[in-house]
């Protein structure tokens, strides 16, 4: 447990600084702007369009990518904990701490993105506002967490963690479809939860489960590929 806390503290120190809040603020502004434009174009479908497009389709994966990159100090997930492992901390435990920090960070960003997207897409005083907020924040928290775990595990491939970049590209390309090829990536399941086209006709309950399974598989892969 102390190893996890050490990894968490290490990642927290890396996530400090002025850059993350500035990037987050700019991203939120962009999402709000997109939401307002969608509302002006078609008020009825604006919440769905902005959530599945600008917020969860583009901004959330990018934020999760940057959070993972920064929490790992731009390195592979296993190498990112070498600094504390050298003093005797179990690499696997420290790695879980780093994953936890990036998952919390991404979930927080996702929740903010969802809130700002809904607020921008709904007209003031809309009756569906609260219901949409509740549902989309829940999806955002899960999606942010899974994306963080996914990018963390992907960084274990490549000498300098280049797998993380490929994971982002693969998720954009293969996750956009609804065939079997889209099954292992988070994007299609997040889209399903938002009411979009399901991956291989999975129900929304199965999409929740699929995301949880992807996250769990990523954690297991990260732990198994890392020496003590």
């Amino acid at each position, binding site marked *: 447990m102390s190893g996890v806390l050490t990894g968490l503290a290490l990642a927290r120190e890396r996530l*400090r600084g002025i850059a993350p809040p500035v990037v987050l603020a700019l991203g939120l502004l962009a999402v709000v702007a997109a939401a307002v434009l969608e509302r002006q174009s078609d008020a009825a479908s604006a919440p769905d369009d902005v959530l599945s497009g600008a917020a969860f389709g583009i901004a959330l994966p990018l934020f999760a990518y940057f959070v993972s990159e920064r929490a790992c100090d731009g390195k592979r997930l296993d190498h990112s904990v070498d600094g504390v492992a050298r003093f005797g901390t179990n690499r696997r435990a420290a790695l879980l701490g780093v994953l936890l920090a990036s998952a919390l960070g991404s979930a927080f960003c996702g929740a903010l993105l969802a809130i700002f997207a809904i607020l921008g897409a709904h007209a003031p005083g809309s009756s569906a506002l609260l219901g949409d907020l509740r549902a989309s924040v829940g999806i955002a928290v899960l999606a942010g967490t899974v994306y963080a775990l996914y990018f963390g595990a992907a960084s274990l491939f490549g000498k300098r963690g280049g797998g993380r970049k490929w994971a982002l590209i693969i998720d954009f390309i293969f996750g956009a479809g609804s065939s079997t090829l889209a099954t292992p990536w988070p994007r299609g399941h997040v889209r399903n939860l938002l009411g979009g086209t399901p991956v291989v006709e999975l129900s929304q309950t199965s999409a929740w489960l699929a995301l949880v399974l992807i996250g769990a598989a990523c954690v297991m892969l990260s732990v198994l590929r890392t020496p003590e």
Partner: protein
Amino acid sequence: MSELRFEALRHAELAYVNAAFGAGTHVVVGNEGDGTGTLIAVAAGSVQSAAGRVLLDGAAPWSHAATRRRIASLCATEVLLPARNVVTGLALSLRARGDTRSAMSVLDDAGLAFFATKRADALTSREARAIALSFALSHREPSLLALHEPLSAVGIVQEDFLLRTLRLHSDAGAIVLCTACRLEDAARLGGQTSALERGIWIAPAYALPPISTVTLRVHTAEPRRLAARLSEAPDISGVEWAGGHEVLVHGSELERVAQSVVANARAEAIRITALKSDAPPLGALAAARAALAQAYYERSAATGNATRPS
């Protein structure tokens, strides 16, 4: 009693290292290009060796967290863990080691309390190494202290404090493995001296078994370079260097050993100031050399290529 073993180790500059260290102080003479920095990093479990094994009490530090916890190290390049200032960075390092002491007390003990509030990214590399050294020396019960050039931090860390702490750990049964690029530094650190020359391990004289039938004592100003060169020579069965200017060269035939020493010294442009054999006398060797040189001369004259033998 702790034991550190390098078994057929190859990594970066390290060509092939087979060595074992018991409790006490051991100094490896050589510079970073010779692989001393790599040796310390591998011993500390900071990097995984490309080939061969490193074992501390039978466990590999790289893949065994409990073993790493018993190691205090100072690497060639030190970067403090990310933090607002030195004291919070050290606190995180202490937490990683499972040490409940305060970071301030560690700095205080080494006389470095004035660094406490300094930003970690504002430290010079020498200051960062001094703080890392104070952290390594603060380890309560290390099995191994692996320190790269610890004396280079003297001036920021007090030499008395450093040497006294190393002696305390050594007396308590820890393995103190230090590197030094100068013989004078090795003498100041004390203990057994061995060397690395371009990644080749040169064992201290006491570590080698008495294997030779003949022994040549070669005096030179560059014993490490010569020993490294000779350790690869086919006619030489063993090379010993005890830290001074004398290298002991073992082989089965005196003439072949002497020829190899001279040829290798020439090839490396190393000046030999004295060449002594335990037996037979040097006169026989001189005669053999002269005969050999004559033979080379006559052969080259016969082929029309009047060059001197190398």
